[in-house]
C-alpha cells in the first residue's frame, strides 16, 4: 500500500505542476504548441533528454540486458550518445533556424515547403502518426506493468486476478489521464516544465535505487562475481564454454521430460504406482512445491528403463508440445512441414510460435499455492502464498526449454547504429527543437546528452545483468517486469514506491511530448492547412488539437490491452520506422538535387520495407529477427536512400526560388 500512496502523491504533484504551468500560458496556439520559442539551454536539454529516454531506457534496457547481457549498452546507448547529438547538431539547429525564419511548427509544414508538394503531407501524416502510436504504446504498456508489479498485495480483497494490485489496464488508463491533463493545462510550456522536473526525478531516484540494490546484493563486486560464476555469457558478447555445457545438460534433461510427457499424454504410457514412487524418490531436487520431483522423477525413470520409444516425428511433436508451441490436439494429428527424418534443433523449433497465454496452466497446477501475497502458506507459516504471476513463472521455468546462451552477432551490433537515427525524424523532437530560444540553446543538449544517457543506462544494464544470477528472478521471466520485480524484492516499500515514481516519470516525460505533438500535427497539417486559419479562433484550434490527442490516446490504450511485446523489441521496430525516413530529412537540408518525386519514392520505400519486414518478424513477436544477417533497419535505410537518389536524379529539380530559400 505504501508504494501505491507514493505513486498517487507523485501523480497529484504532476497535476499541480500542470495547473501551475497553465498560469504562465499566454492563451495563443503558438504558445500552446511551441512555448513561444522561449525555452533556454537547461530546459531544452532536460526536455530533449526526458523525451528520448522513455520506458525503453529504464524498463526496456534492464529487461533486455537480463536476456542478452552487458553488450546491450553498446547496442543502443553508446551509439545513441553519438548519433542523437549528431542529429541535434546537424539537423536540429538547422531546422530550428528554418522554422524560426519561415514559421514552421511541424515537420510536414517544412517538407511541404521544401519539396514544393502539398500532397506529401497527406502521405507523411498517417505514416508519422502511425509510427508514433507504437512509441506511445511502449510507455502506456510499461506504465501498466510497472504499477501492477509494484503494487501487488496492496488491496485486501479487490483485484484478486491481478495479484491484489492495481490492474495494468487501470494503471495505464490513470497514467494516460494524468499526462493528458497536464498537457492540456500547460501545453508545450507545461510539457517542458514537467519533462525537466521528471527527468531530474528519474535520474536521481534511479541512482539512489541502484546504490541500494547493489548494497543488498552484497556490494558491486559480489553482485558481478555472481554473474561471472553462474552466467558468464551475460558479461560478454560470445558464449562462455561453461555456459554452453550447462545449457547442453539442461536441454538434454528437458528433452527427456518432453519425450516422457508426449508418451504419457499422446501415446498412453502409464507408469505403475511403484514405478512413479521409485522415479520420484530417485530424483534429488524437489523444486517449487515439489513440482520438479513430480514431473522429472518419473521421466528420468522411464528413460533409464527404456519405456520411451518415439519416432523422429513423434520426438519433434513432443518438443513442440512441451514448449507450448502446439496443442495436444495438434500433437495427436499431422503437422505440416514437420521433419520426420531428423530431430528438430532448439533453434529450429523456435520458429513455431509459442501459444499466447499458454503459461496460464500454471494457475491450475499450483492452485493450492496461489493466494494473497501477504498471507502465509497453510501449514508453512514461514512461506507466503504465491502470486498468480509466480505460479505462471514457475510453470514457465520448469516446463519450457531452457534459454540457450546467445552470442551477439558483430554485424547485428554494427547495424544497430542505424536505429538511433530515428531521432532525426521524431515529430515530437522536431517540435521541441523549435521551442529553443536561440541556436546556442542547443549547445548544452548536444554536449550533455551522451553523458546523461550513460548516467541512466549504465545502472539499468548492470542491474539487468546482476538479476540473471541473484536467484530472485527465474528463467523465462517477462523482460518488461524485471526492473519492478528487482526493486520490489530488494528494497523497502518506501524506496520501491519512490523508484516506481521515477520509472513513471521517465515514461510520462515522453508520453506528454508525443501527445502534444500529434495534436499539433493534426491542427497544423490537416485542419488549418485545408481550411482557412481565420475560420478558427485560437481557442477552437486548441480544442481540436485536444480532441485528436484523446482519440489517438484512446486508440493506443486499446492496443495496450492486447498481448504485450517486449518493450525493447517494440521500441526498436518503432525507431527503425523513423530511421528509415532519416535519409529524407538529411537530404532535404543538405542536397539541392532532392526532388519531390525522389521524396515520394523515399517515403514509399521506407513505408513498404518497414511494413514487409515488420510482418516477417511476426509483428515483433520474434525478438531475434534479422534480415540478411543484419538489423532490418539497415535494409530500410538502404532502400530509402537508393530510391530517393535514383528518382531524384532522373526527375525535375526543385525551382530556383526554393533553392534560394533553403540553400542561400
Amino acid at each position, binding site marked *: 500500500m505504501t508504494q501505491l500512496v507514493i505513486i498517487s502523491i507523485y501523480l497529484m504533484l504532476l497535476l499541480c505542476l500542470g495547473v501551475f504551468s497553465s498560469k504562465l500560458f499566454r492563451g495563443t496556439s503558438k504558445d500552446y504548441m511551441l512555448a513561444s520559442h522561449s525555452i533556454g539551454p537547461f530546459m531544452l536539454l532536460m526536455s530533449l533528454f526526458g523525451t528520448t529516454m522513455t520506458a525503453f531506457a529504464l524498463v526496456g534496457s534492464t529487461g533486455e540486458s537480463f536476456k542478452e*547481457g*552487458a*553488450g546491450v*549498452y*553498446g547496442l543502443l*546507448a*553508446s*551509439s545513441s*550518445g*553519438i548519433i542523437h*547529438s*549528431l542529429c541535434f*547538431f546537424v539537423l536540429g*539547429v*538547422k531546422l530550428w*533556424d528554418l522554422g524560426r*525564419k519561415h514559421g514552421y511548427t511541424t515537420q510536414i509544414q517544412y517538407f511541404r515547403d521544401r519539396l514544393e508538394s502539398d500532397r506529401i503531407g497527406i502521405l507523411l501524416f498517417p505514416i508519422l502518426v502511425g509510427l508514433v502510436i507504437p512509441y506511445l504504446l511502449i510507455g502506456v504498456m510499461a506504465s501498466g506493468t510497472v504499477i501492477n508489479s509494484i503494487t501487488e498485495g496492496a488491496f485486501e480483497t479487490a483485484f484478486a486476478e491481478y495479484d491484489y494490485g492495481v490492474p495494468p489496464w487501470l494503471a495505464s488508463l490513470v497514467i494516460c489521464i494524468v499526462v493528458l491533463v497536464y498537457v492540456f493545462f500547460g501545453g508545450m510550456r507545461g510539457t517542458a516544465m514537467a519533462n525537466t522536473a521528471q527527468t531530474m526525478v528519474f535520474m536521481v531516484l534511479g541512482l539512489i535505487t541502484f546504490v541500494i540494490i547493489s548494497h543488498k546484493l552484497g556490494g*558491486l*563486486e559480489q*553482485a*558481478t*562475481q555472481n554473474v*561471472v560464476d553462474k552466467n*558468464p*555469457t551475460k*558479461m*560478454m*558478447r*560470445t558464449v*562462455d564454454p561453461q555456459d554452453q555445457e550447462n545449457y547442453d545438460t539442461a536441454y538434454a534433461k528437458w528433452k527427456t521430460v518432453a519425450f516422457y510427457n508426449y508418451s504419457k499424454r499422446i501415446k498412453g504410457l502409464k507408469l505403475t504406482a511403484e514405478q512413479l514412487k521409485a522415479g520420484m524418490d530417485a530424483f534429488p531436487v524437489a523444486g517449487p512445491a515439489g513440482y520438479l520431483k513430480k514431473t522429472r522423477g518419473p521421466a528420468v525413470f522411464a528413460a533409464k528403463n527404456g519405456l520411451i520409444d518415439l519416432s523422429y516425428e513423434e520426438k519433434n511433436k513432443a518438443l513442440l508440445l512441451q514448449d507450448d508451441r502446439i496443442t495436444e490436439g495438434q500433437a495427436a494429428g499431422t503437422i505440416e512441414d514437420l521433419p520426420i527424418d531428423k530431430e528438430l534443433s532448439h533453434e529450429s523449433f523456435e520458429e513455431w510460435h509459442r501459444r499466447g497465454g499458454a503459461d496460464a496452466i500454471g494457475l491450475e497446477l499450483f492452485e493450492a499455492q496461489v493466494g494473497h501475497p501477504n498471507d502465509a502458506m497453510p501449514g508453512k507459516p514461514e512461506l507466503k502464498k504465491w502470486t498468480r504471476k509466480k505460479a505462471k513463472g514457475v510453470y514457465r521455468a520448469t516446463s519450457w526449454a531452457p534459454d540457450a546462451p546467445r552470442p*551477439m552477432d*558483430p554485424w547485428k*551490433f*554494427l547495424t544497430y*547504429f542505424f536505429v538511433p537515427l530515428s531521432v532525426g525524424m521524431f515529430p515530437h523532437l522536431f517540435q521541441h527543437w523549435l521551442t529553443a530560444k*536561440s*541556436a546556442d540553446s542547443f*549547445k548544452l543538449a*548536444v*554536449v*550533455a*546528452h*551522451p*553523458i546523461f*544517457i*550513460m548516467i541512466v543506462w*549504465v545502472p539499468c*544494464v*548492470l542491474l539487468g*545483468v546482476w538479476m540473471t544470477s541473484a536467484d530472485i528472478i527465474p528463467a523465462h521471466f517477462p523482460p518488461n517486469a524485471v526492473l519492478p520485480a528487482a526493486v520490489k524484492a530488494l528494497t523497502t516499500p518506501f524506496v520501491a514506491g519512490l523508484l516506481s515514481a521515477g520509472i513513471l516519470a521517465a515514461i510520462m516525460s515522453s508520453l506528454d511530448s508525443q501527445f502534444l505533438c500529434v495534436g499539433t500535427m493534426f491542427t497544423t497539417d490537416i485542419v488549418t492547412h485545408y481550411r482557412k486559419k481565420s475560420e478558427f479562433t485560437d481557442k477552437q484550434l486548441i480544442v481540436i488539437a485536444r480532441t485528436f490527442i484523446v482519440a489517438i490516446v484512446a486508440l493506443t490504450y486499446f492496443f495496450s490491452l492486447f498481448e504485450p511485446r517486449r518493450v525493447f523489441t517494440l521500441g526498436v521496430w518503432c525507431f527503425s520506422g523513423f530511421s528509415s525516413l532519416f535519409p529524407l530529412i538529411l537530404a532535404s537540408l543538405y542536397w539541392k538535387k532532392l526532388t519531390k518525386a525522389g521524396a515520394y519514392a523515399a517515403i514509399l520505400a521506407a513505408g513498404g520495407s518497414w511494413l514487409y519486414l515488420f510482418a516477417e518478424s511476426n509483428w515483433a513477436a520474434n525478438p531475434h529477427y534479422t534480415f540478411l544477417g543484419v538489423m532490418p533497419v539497415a535494409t530500410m535505410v538502404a532502400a530509402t536512400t537508393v530510391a530517393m537518389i535514383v528518382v531524384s536524379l532522373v526527375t525535375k529539380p526543385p525551382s530556383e526560388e526554393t533553392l534560394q530559400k533553403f540553400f542561400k
Partner: protein
Amino acid sequence: MIYPMICSRIALLNPTSIQSFRNRHAIMNKNGKFIVIGLVILLIILHHDVWNWDKKEPVMGFMPVALLWQALISVGAGITWYIATKIAWPVFDDDDAVVVTESVTDAGSEVSEGGE
C-alpha cells in the same frame, strides 16, 4: 567613455567588419567540421570493439568490459560534441548581435593601440 559607444554604433552600420568576422568564422568552421567528422568516425570505429567480445573478467572488480568500454565511448562522444560546439558551431542571422559585439571589441582595441 563616449568614444567606444560611437565605435559600437559605427560597427553596427559597418558591414565590412561583420563580413570579416564571418569570413574568419567560416574558415575556422570549415576546419572544425573536418576535425569533428574525423572524431565521429573514430568513435564509430572504436564503438565496434570486437577485440572485447570474449572478455568476461570485470574491470575494477565489478564492471563488465563490454559495458565499461562502451560507457567510455559515451564520455568520448560528450567530449567530441563539446569540441564541436567550440570549433564547428554554425552562425545564424541572429548571431549578428555577437558579431557586432566582437567587432566593437576589435574596434576598441585598435583605438587603444593607436594611443587614443
